[in-house]
Structures are given as structure tokens and as C-alpha cells.
């Protein structure tokens, strides 16, 4: 008992920093093929990811001391325990977590915190979602008007307000977020946002695990079905099925592993989670900027690196309009300089700061709870030099970012083992 208390106390002192004496490591990680997986249910997908990550780590389920399971759509069903009933009921603690689109990152961070606190030596984090063909995830249906107007809810509304007082659909919410950035700093128009999408679809060609590995021309993107101006369909993240999982250990456990396991280990230099602090307008249009800026600042400080040290970034391009604002929020450019940053070619895969070389959520797909571990897998795979045709040569430091509306922001900074 006293050991646990001591470990918790020392972990608390370092808070969200990864620079504690007991460094955290990823020793196994796996991402399933994203896309339509009609023959696989949530447990099949979670099992594939979890067993893949354990095999990659050279471990079995019996080595795992804590499981964090992220899932949005079946959150009430305890996906962690459903997974255990297939791959191993070992009696370990399970944390089922939900945090919108930051669910996967939250699951990973939960496993990290548990191991760092001394609760376990080996943690397994899984994110899984099955939403192929789901359509609009928010604002996709609206209750019909009741026969008599009666005020209800926190706004005293007499009828559903989606479409009557703004929009609740995500493509529309994030469209406004991009347009607001353009209003503040200028230079962002429909074509610029479409070119961001063109970049990511182009990147996806090199990613065999992406839901859509097809390049698209600017004309195709701009001429496709308009969902919410300026976001056309290919500028929206793809709803799909998929899972990803990671095995994390502390430094003491890593030392007991084989030389090969240690060589492939990826250092977790920062693991950060933030929510949005209150600001004017944040309950009118979600503010995805401040909490990302706060998370980035904390992560860079914890890792002892700056944006200039990053070799690649996987950021949350749930819509093309979102990618632009996060160049700025993550400090990849100067304040207000996101358009110039894109125009400079920096975020292209041959640029100085490759962003979303996986193809991003627009083409790789966005199985909500899997996304926040899949982006870690992408960065970790580059750190290991195992990314095949899309390898960013010599990558040593990378950042993975997710945003869940509501809001939650998860940022992890990874570094290659020395």
C-alpha cells in the first residue's frame, strides 16, 4: 500500500510531464486495416488490434497488468471486458473510457498513467470503433415538432433547434472554425481548404491501411458533393471501422526486455490531455484552438523539444478546415501564419514539416475511438523506420494530436529510442 502511495505521489509531482526518472515507452503497437469491415464486430476488431500489439511487443495477455479500452458507440457495454472475454480474462483492472474523438488518446494516456502510478508494469490501450456508413454523427436526425409548443431543455426550446439556430452537424461546425480563422487572418478560401484535402488524399496512396488510398485532383475535390461550405464530401473524415492498440511499459520493465525489443521501443516524451478553458464564444462555436495551444505548450515543455524539432506531425484533420487551424495551434507556424505555412509547401511529405503523411482522417478514415491510437501507430512506425514507402527518412521526433468536441485535446510526442 505504501509503495503505491509513494509511486502515485512521485508521479503526481511530475504531472503530465514525461521527463520523470521512470520514462514511459511503447513496446508494441498495431493498427488494423481501416475501412468497411462487415464481417468483423467490435470485439473482432479490438482483438485484432490488441493481439497485434501484444505480438509486436513480444508479450502475451498474461503480461498485461492494466487495460484501457476506448469506444464511443458501445460505451455502455464495457468493451474492455468484452475484449477480455475473447483474449484473456486475467482479472486485471479495466478502464473503459469515452472522450469523443479524443477517446483513443485518452485510453492510451489512462494506461500510461496507470503504469506510471505503479498500478501495473505493462499497460494495454485499445481504441475501437465500428461506424462504416454511419452518415452524420451529430445532427444526422432531428426529432419532429411536438403537437403543442412546450419549452424544454436548458434553452427552453419549444422545438428542435438544429437547422433553426445554426447547425449541429460536424462538417458545418468545423467549416465555421476554418472560416473564422480566415476571417481573423485572411487568405483562407474554398480552394485553399480543398488543396489541404488534395495533399492528404495524395498521401494516402502510400498507406495500405487507409480506408481510401486514392489520390484526388483539386477539381474532383471541389466538384464533389457539398456537405457544408466549404467542406465537400472528400474534405470530411471518412466514417469507417477500425481499431488500434498499444502496449506501454515503464523504464524498469523495458530494461528486462530483449535487446531487440528495446531497440524497437519508442519513447513517450509527452502525454497530455486538456479541455477548453472558458472564453467568450466557446459555448457558441466550439473553440478547438485554445485547448490545443495549451496542450501543445505543455507537451513541448514536457518533452524538452519545440515544434522545429518535429520530423512529422499527425494532426486531427477531421475536416480540411480543421487542419489549417491546427498548423497554428500546434505552433508549426507563427500566429496567424497557417495559410503561408501551407503555401510554403512545409506540410507536404517532402516539405520541412510533413503533416498527415498517413493520409489523415480524410482518407485514412476516422473510426472515432481508434483514431487517437492509430495516429500514435503512424508516428511510432516512422520512429522505428518501418513505414515502408511512406517512411520519413531519419525521423526521430513526432507529434500526434486529436481533438474531441466538447472538448478534449490529446497530444503525444514520441521519440526514437537512442
Amino acid at each position, binding site marked *: 500500500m505504501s509503495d503505491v502511495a509513494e509511486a502515485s505521489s512521485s508521479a503526481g509531482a511530475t504531472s503530465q510531464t514525461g521527463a520523470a526518472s521512470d520514462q514511459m515507452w511503447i513496446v508494441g503497437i498495431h493498427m488494423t486495416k481501416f475501412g468497411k469491415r462487415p464481417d468483423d464486430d467490435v470485439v473482432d476488431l479490438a482483438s485484432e488490434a490488441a493481439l497485434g500489439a501484444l505480438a509486436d511487443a513480444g508479450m502475451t495477455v498474461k503480461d498485461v497488468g492494466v487495460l484501457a479500452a476506448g469506444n464511443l458507440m458501445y460505451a455502455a457495454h464495457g468493451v474492455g471486458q468484452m475484449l477480455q472475454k475473447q483474449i484473456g480474462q486475467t482479472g486485471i483492472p479495466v478502464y473503459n473510457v469515452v472522450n469523443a474523438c479524443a477517446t483513443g488518446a485518452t485510453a492510451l494516456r489512462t494506461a500510461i498513467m496507470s503504469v506510471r502510478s505503479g498500478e501495473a508494469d505493462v499497460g494495454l490501450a485499445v481504441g475501437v470503433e465500428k461506424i462504416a456508413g454511419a452518415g452524420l454523427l451529430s445532427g444526422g436526425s432531428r426529432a419532429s415538432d411536438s403537437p403543442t409548443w412546450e419549452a424544454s431543455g436548458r434553452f427552453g426550446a419549444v422545438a428542435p433547434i438544429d437547422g433553426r439556430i445554426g447547425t449541429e452537424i460536424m462538417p458545418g461546425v468545423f*467549416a465555421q472554425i476554418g472560416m473564422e480563422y480566415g476571417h481573423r487572418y485572411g487568405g483562407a478560401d474554398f480552394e485553399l481548404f480543398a488543396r489541404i484535402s488534395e495533399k492528404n488524399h495524395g498521401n494516402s496512396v502510400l498507406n495500405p491501411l487507409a480506408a481510401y488510398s486514392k489520390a484526388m485532383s483539386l477539381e474532383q475535390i471541389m466538384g464533389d458533393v457539398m456537405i457544408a461550405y466549404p467542406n465537400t464530401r472528400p474534405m470530411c473524415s471518412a466514417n469507417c471501422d477500425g481499431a488500434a492498440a498499444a502496449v506501454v511499459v515503464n523504464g524498469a520493465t523495458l530494461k528486462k526486455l530483449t535487446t531487440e525489443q528495446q531497440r524497437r521501443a519508442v519513447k513517450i516524451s509527452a502525454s497530455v490531455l486538456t479541455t477548453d478553458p472558458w472564453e467568450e464564444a466557446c459555448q457558441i*462555436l466550439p473553440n478547438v484552438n485554445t485547448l490545443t495551444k495549451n496542450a501543445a505548450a505543455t507537451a513541448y515543455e514536457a518533452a524538452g523539444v519545440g515544434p522545429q524539432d518535429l520530423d512529422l506531425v499527425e494532426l486531427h484533420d477531421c475536416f480540411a478546415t480543421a487542419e489549417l487551424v491546427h498548423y497554428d495551434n500546434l505552433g508549426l507556424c507563427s500566429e496567424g501564419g497557417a495559410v503561408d505555412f501551407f503555401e510554403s509547401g512545409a506540410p507536404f511529405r517532402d516539405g520541412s514539416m510533413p503533416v498527415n503523411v498517413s493520409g489523415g482522417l480524410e482518407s485514412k478514415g476516422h473510426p472515432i475511438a481508434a483514431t487517437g491510437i492509430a495516429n500514435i501507430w503512424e508516428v511510432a512506425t516512422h520512429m522505428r523506420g518501418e513505414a515502408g514507402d511512406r517512411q520519413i527518412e531519419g525521423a526521430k521526433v513526432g507529434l500526434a494530436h486529436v481533438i474531441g468536441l466538447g472538448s478534449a485535446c490529446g497530444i503525444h510526442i514520441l521519440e526514437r529510442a537512442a
Partner: protein
Amino acid sequence: MGADIPLVDYLVLGDDPHLEANECVACGARFFDRRNACASCGAINSDGSGFKRVELPATGELTAFTIVSFAAPGIDVPFVAGVVDCGGTSVRANIVNVSPDPEHVATGMQVSFTTFGIGEDSEGTEAIGFGYEPVDEELRITEDATEKAEANS
């Protein structure tokens, strides 16, 4: 014919329809929903005295918008959804009486408050909604213009 009823309780009807925000007495943060406490400063609103109702100005600037072309069944598309800065207080609303295309809607445009009926219930009560329309009359589609267009077609 029953009385009118506002779509939401922060819309105040009468001779001079307007929006009212709930302003935190302690820190001035503004909200449109029913408050338990202040999300900005944490001041507790146990007896309702922690917030006061404040009237918003009738004009503002459009700071963000989207043109929704794809929405739930029952929602007429396309329509313009946006954020209007009303003297430092942001409001979520539709931009109405304007052609819903990027040639006629732009951030930075000045808009003014307006109300309109959204339908009667089974007892004949009319629900009243609100939105903002362009201040620039050249951009504004008036009912007269619509009727003329329909008459000419």
C-alpha cells in the same frame, strides 16, 4: 389564433423583439442557457441572483459561417449557419433573407436581428424564431422581392 411563443427562452418577443443573455454578476461572462454556476469564474447561482438578464444589440458582424447543404430530414437546405458578434457577445444563428451562396455571404458582413414565424401548433400558437439578415439592402432578399420573383416566374 393563440398567442406567440419564442423558439427559445432567450428570445424576448413583444414590440421590440431581442435576445437576452444571462450575464454572471461576478465576472460578466455571458451565456444563453439556464445556469447552475458560472463556467468562467465558478460563481454559484443557487438562488438565481448570480446572473442578470442583459439585452443584446440588434446588429452585429458575421465572424464565421457555413452553408449547410446536407442535414437531417426535415431541415430545409441549403441554409446559412453562422456566428454573429453582437457588441462583444457571440450569438449562434442562421443568416436569413440572403441568397445562400458564397457570393452573397462573407465573414465581416454587418447583419441585423430579425424574427419570423416557424409554424403553428395544434392549438394555433405560433412559434417565433430568430436570425440575422444582411444590413446591406442589396444583399437582403425581402419578402416583396420574393413575391415579385414568384409573380414573374
